[in-house]
């Protein structure tokens, strides 16, 4: 199997399931079973109603860009610079931190519609990235 530069998340009880969903192609959002509040990043208890019971929904992958930064330095091996890091407001209401691909540095704008693309590393590790929404001009 090919080596990957990417720092892998530690897989614990609170987050391993989420990465398993990503491996299956899904951008998951944890949901409280008792009060239905969505939460991200995942946690073992609902901060609103204190329930330990949860499931998840699969996000549509559509959202808008709440903020971003373009990273130039320092340059870590394996990443392509300038590296566009984004904070997406998913249409389900939670936010998600990710990378914007298929977009030039000059074309990034606050509020721009984006859509999820499941990225796969050479070693098979998958993580959600985003690109400008293809239907945006339709």
């Amino acid at each position, binding site marked *: 199997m090919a080596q990957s530069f*990417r*720092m*892998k*998340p*530690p*897989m*614990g009880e*609170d*987050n391993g399931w989420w990465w398993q969903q990503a491996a299956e192609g899904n951008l998951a959002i944890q949901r409280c079973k008792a009060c239905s509040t969505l939460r*991200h*990043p995942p946690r073992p208890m609902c*901060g609103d109603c204190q329930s330990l019971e949860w499931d998840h929904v699969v996000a549509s992958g559509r959202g808008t860009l*709440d*903020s*971003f*930064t*373009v*990273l*130039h*330095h*320092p340059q*870590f091996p394996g*990443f392509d610079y*300038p*590296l566009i*890091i984004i*904070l997406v407001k998913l249409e389900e209401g*939670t*936010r998600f*931190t*990710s*990378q914007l691909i298929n977009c030039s540095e000059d074309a990034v704008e*606050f509020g721009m519609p984006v859509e999820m693309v499941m990225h796969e590393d050479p070693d098979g590790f998958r*993580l959600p990235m985003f690109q400008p929404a293809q239907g945006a001009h339709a």
Partner: protein
Amino acid sequence: MSQFLKDKAAIAGIGLTEFSKKSGVSELSLAAQATLAACEDAGLPPSEIDGFVSYTLDSTDEIELARTVGAGDLKLFTKVNYGGGAAVGTILHAVMAVATGVADNVICYRAMNGRSGQRMGQGISGQIVSSDLVHWSWYMPYGMLTPGSWIAMIANKYMHHHGVTAEDLGRVAISQRNYAQSNPRSFFHGKPLTMEDYLASKMIADPLRLYDFCQETDGGCAILVTSAERARDLQQKPAIIRGVVQASTRGQEQMTSYYRDELDSLPEMEMAAKLVYAQSGLGPDDINAACLYDAFTSEVIMQLESFGFCGRGEGKDMVRDGALDIDGRLPNNTHGGLLSEAYIHGMNSIAEGARLVRGTSTSQPKGVEHVLVSSGVGVPTGALILARD
């Protein structure tokens, strides 16, 4: 907010090592030298120190330092979490101990080979699964490995929302660099900064350029906290601790609080402001000078709003008016700050706060009664108000 701690304790001594890019000595040695310097500054022998407080990020444990400097029996030993967010938190823990009689003379310290040893933002990895590592793992796989990358996300939103320009950030960097010109300890002593230099400096994490970033420093700093009464009998003018608080708000993450309703304010700093003003009985109008935590220039502008020196979105106007300069409304980081003096994780800014109250800053504004010092930005934080006796 209880006023129990108000005026109970004081900073009686400050101690610094030389600041450099390669100390050539251990962090324990830096901590010991800084502690000894603080004791000598106060005129108190190390054998009378009975408490030590530091940062969880500090590699020097309390008892290692105690043995090394020849401290007495210890009644307090503790460390405060969250990087630079610990800074004035260490003072709070010392004050709580002194005010309650748990300990008499407490050293708060931070010593780091921050350039030649373990540098910030080198990434975190490992096989251990802790809630903290899981937190970082939402960012690390995407290449968000540095403090600059985490802060830039908030800085960009804030600047976009309020029309803050690159020149505004540059004004903060230049103001503090000007102070560094009269401070021989400063890394940038003898190296002034022009707006042209600032704008030409390389973009690191857009919108943050090289000169928006603090230093990486080898050095140590120690602060001696004792009762106000005892401090009056020692050899320096006491810096009375009128207010000191820690603050962390709902939805707080370490550096990446991206999931709260607002992205363009600092809720934990607003909370710290509210608490420290209530505890001290003071308000923004009473503050004559400040050491606002400045790992990044954008944080200084945002904190002017958090602490009520101006309204939301008006921080840039204060900066444009020269408010942070020596003859301005709020001389800020008169030692040069973490941007231009040294990055000792905010401990050196507490030392400057004490100097401002003593009247011994290398850029001393006139008529300083109260100085505000804040802890790290974007993390669980705190605020401190020092007063002239």
